[in-house]
């Protein structure tokens, strides 16, 4: 039984030079958490280079062990086994055919010579395996052959990239313009507009699905990538984030530029935007992640497979088939790769941005 004192020591200890037992428990807790968080992703990564056979058999080993094979005489691919003879020596053999409880095998060295074939009890055979990552899992869906018609990965990848890039660029432009107007101008109704824009955060996206769909369809954007991009451009989070940052830019800079007869657009484009770069960077990162991972709205607007984004393609592919598991897992890895890279390199900005705004 752990007493309340122990528990609270464990939870509140802050400074300790020596390793108290609560530290050990804390590290253990973190290690368990690490396993729960990371192992599923790692298991996905290592599974993605296994062959379809290993996946269907649910080979629980971590590394992609594959059956060693040799080309047979009649262009068959023969599996290689190891046989231990009665005298203790062993030899690698290729499996030719079953013979009841026995197996007809031929030594690998003389695989072409049918006269060297002999029978051994199947129980004597030990499967020969080696670690062999299946790069084809990635290359096949990417560069043709077979089911690219059913799973045109490059098409989906391009669609996702297009949506993400366009939506992010436009998000930055449109929201920074609004933030500029709302931070550097004084006019009647300004505060009301700020409140209105921020209040759109309170409109739950899942609740306006139907009318949003009707609107998008009415605008002729159904089954168009722009139907996913345009509704996502205006972001209350973006306006809020950028406005808070722009408020810290001194007005003297802008007044000085006006003295020099700079147009309002030039002030925005040449002075305010460059100075707001840190906030723009945070918004850009968030927008890339939002748009790349978007699922529900694309699911509603995009119903033809030519316009599917990666997420839609993956979910359809997952539902449809079990016989291309290797491709599904490999493509899942490729889908999580971009956000993972973004996260690895920009982790500080992301966590700082989210912790400061409290928005996802």
């Amino acid at each position, binding site marked *: *039984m*752990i*007493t*309340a*004192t122990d*528990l*609270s020591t464990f*939870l*509140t*200890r*802050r400074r300790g030079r020596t390793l108290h037992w609560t*530290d050990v428990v804390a*590290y253990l*807790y*973190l290690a368990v958490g*690490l396993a729960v*968080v990371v192992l599923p*992703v790692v*298991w*996905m990564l290592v599974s993605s280079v296994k062959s379809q056979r290993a996946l269907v058999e*649910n080979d*629980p080993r971590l590394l992609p062990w594959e059956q060693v094979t040799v080309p047979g005489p009649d262009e068959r691919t023969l599996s290689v086994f190891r046989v231990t003879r009665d005298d203790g020596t062993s030899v690698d053999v290729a499996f030719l055919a079953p013979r009841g409880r026995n197996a007809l095998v031929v030594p690998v060295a003389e695989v072409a010579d049918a006269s060297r074939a002999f029978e051994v009890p199947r129980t004597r055979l030990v499967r020969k395996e080696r670690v062999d990552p299946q790069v084809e899992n990635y290359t096949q869906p990417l560069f043709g052959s077979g089911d690219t018609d059913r799973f045109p990965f490059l098409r989906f990848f391009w669609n996702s990239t297009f949506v993400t890039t366009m939506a992010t660029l436009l998000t930055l432009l*449109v929201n920074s*313009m609004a933030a*500029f*107007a709302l931070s550097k101008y004084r*006019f009647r109704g*300004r505060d009301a507009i700020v409140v209105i824009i921020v209040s759109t955060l*309170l409109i*739950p996206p*899942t*609740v*306006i*699905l*139907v*009318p*949003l*769909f*009707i609107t998008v*369809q009415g605008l002729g954007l159904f089954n168009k990538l722009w139907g996913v991009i345009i*509704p996502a451009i*205006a972001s209350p989070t973006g306006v809020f984030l950028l406005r808070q940052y722009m408020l810290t830019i001194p007005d003297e800079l802008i007044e000085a530029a006006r003295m020099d007869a700079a147009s*309002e*657009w030039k002030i925005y484009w040449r002075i305010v935007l460059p100075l707001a770069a840190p906030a723009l960077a945070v918004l850009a990162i968030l927008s890339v*992640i939002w748009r*790349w*991972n978007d*699922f529900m709205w694309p699911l509603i607007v995009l119903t033809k497979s030519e316009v599917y984004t990666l*997420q839609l393609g*993956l*979910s359809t592919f*997952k539902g449809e088939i079990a016989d291309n598991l290797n491709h599904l*897992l490999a493509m899942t890895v490729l*889908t*999580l790769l971009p956000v993972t890279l973004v996260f690895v390199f920009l*982790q500080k900005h*992301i*966590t700082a941005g989210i912790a*400061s705004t409290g928005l*996802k």
Partner: protein
Amino acid sequence: MSDREPSASSVAGERPLDRIAAVWRRIDPVDFFFRTLQGRIGAKRMAWVFLVPNLVIFATFAFWPMILNFWMAFTGGTSAILAERPFVGLENFREILDCPSWVDPRGCPVVGYSFWTGLWNTLFFAAVQVPVMIFVATATALVLDREMKGRGFWRAVYFYPVMLSPVVVAVIWDWILKRRGILNALLGDLVDGWNAVASLPAAAGAIVFAATFLVVVLVGRPVAARLGTAPAVARRFALVVGLVVAAVATFAGRPWGFLVVDDFRPVNWLVDQRSGWPMFWAIFVYSWAHLGFYMLILLAGLQAIPRDLYEAAEMDGTSKTRQLFRITLPLLMPTMLVVVVLSLIRAFQVFDEIWVLTGGGPGQATKMIVQHIYETAFTGDAKRYGVAAASSVLVAGVLLVLTLAQLFVTRRRARG
């Protein structure tokens, strides 16, 4: 567009592209357009020009749909063209609410069945998922708030799943939870290993001994402390009692039979209808994917607590328990409230992960309210936009209450 003035060399540059770029920079058509506009309407009104794109998009894709939703809730038919939708009054609501028992929707007509099943599932999901996730997130944040080695690393690790898309999360866990997947394999190995150890008489005896010893020591120590015995004496006493009890239990009772458990039979985690596992995994996977976000906010809340409070408490000899319950948790409470309401709002709208993971199944076991809206409006042959919109209105009512609670909480937090 850089703000450098074109230098003489680039104007007279050899390559035509450079010349075009230089001319472009000098004229700057975008600026020309806005400068002309500014000349006509004046600098003051330019603020509205900057605002218009944003406001137009908000109006079209946020405010207008919100109004339209109410209108659509009162229209029928299956047409997506507004003019072709007949006004039906409260018919859609009647259809949803028309049900002998809302608590047990099995006797309801199709629409009511779908709605109430989704609603109850969602309420159950939120009621379990939110407390569990917040508890784990708080514990993790408290651990990370200590002076840990590699704190940034741990924080990043726990946050990482938040970056993954719902589809990726669902594919990963589906792969793990297959009937012949890695989880069943691991559990099978674990049970086999345990049984192998427990069937050895000596090993089984050692397990019983260790367990008894541990219990006696852990229970004995605080009891001895309460009785006022010296710690060393108490420890020795606990050791002796533990040894005696364990020895008796081990050698007199020979109770290893109960240590051997049945062989593990693989569970069909996401398909087994009566087991309750699909809902369990729906909650687990969703929490797995979102925990890091709330942990991060809670951690920020913890780090905002002034450190000198703890130093003062140390000076006064306040115990760690009191520090936790009197300083840390009360000061964390405002952040906690925000996090609870925020996660409730999110949990109520859960769709993506679970839809890809279980598709709402088996049967209707994990069908959530948003899935009901989605399926009513967008799948199947009869697209019942009116019923979906009416359901949305009802859901919006619940969310509105939660949102108002959040606003109330946030305001109180801002004030004090």
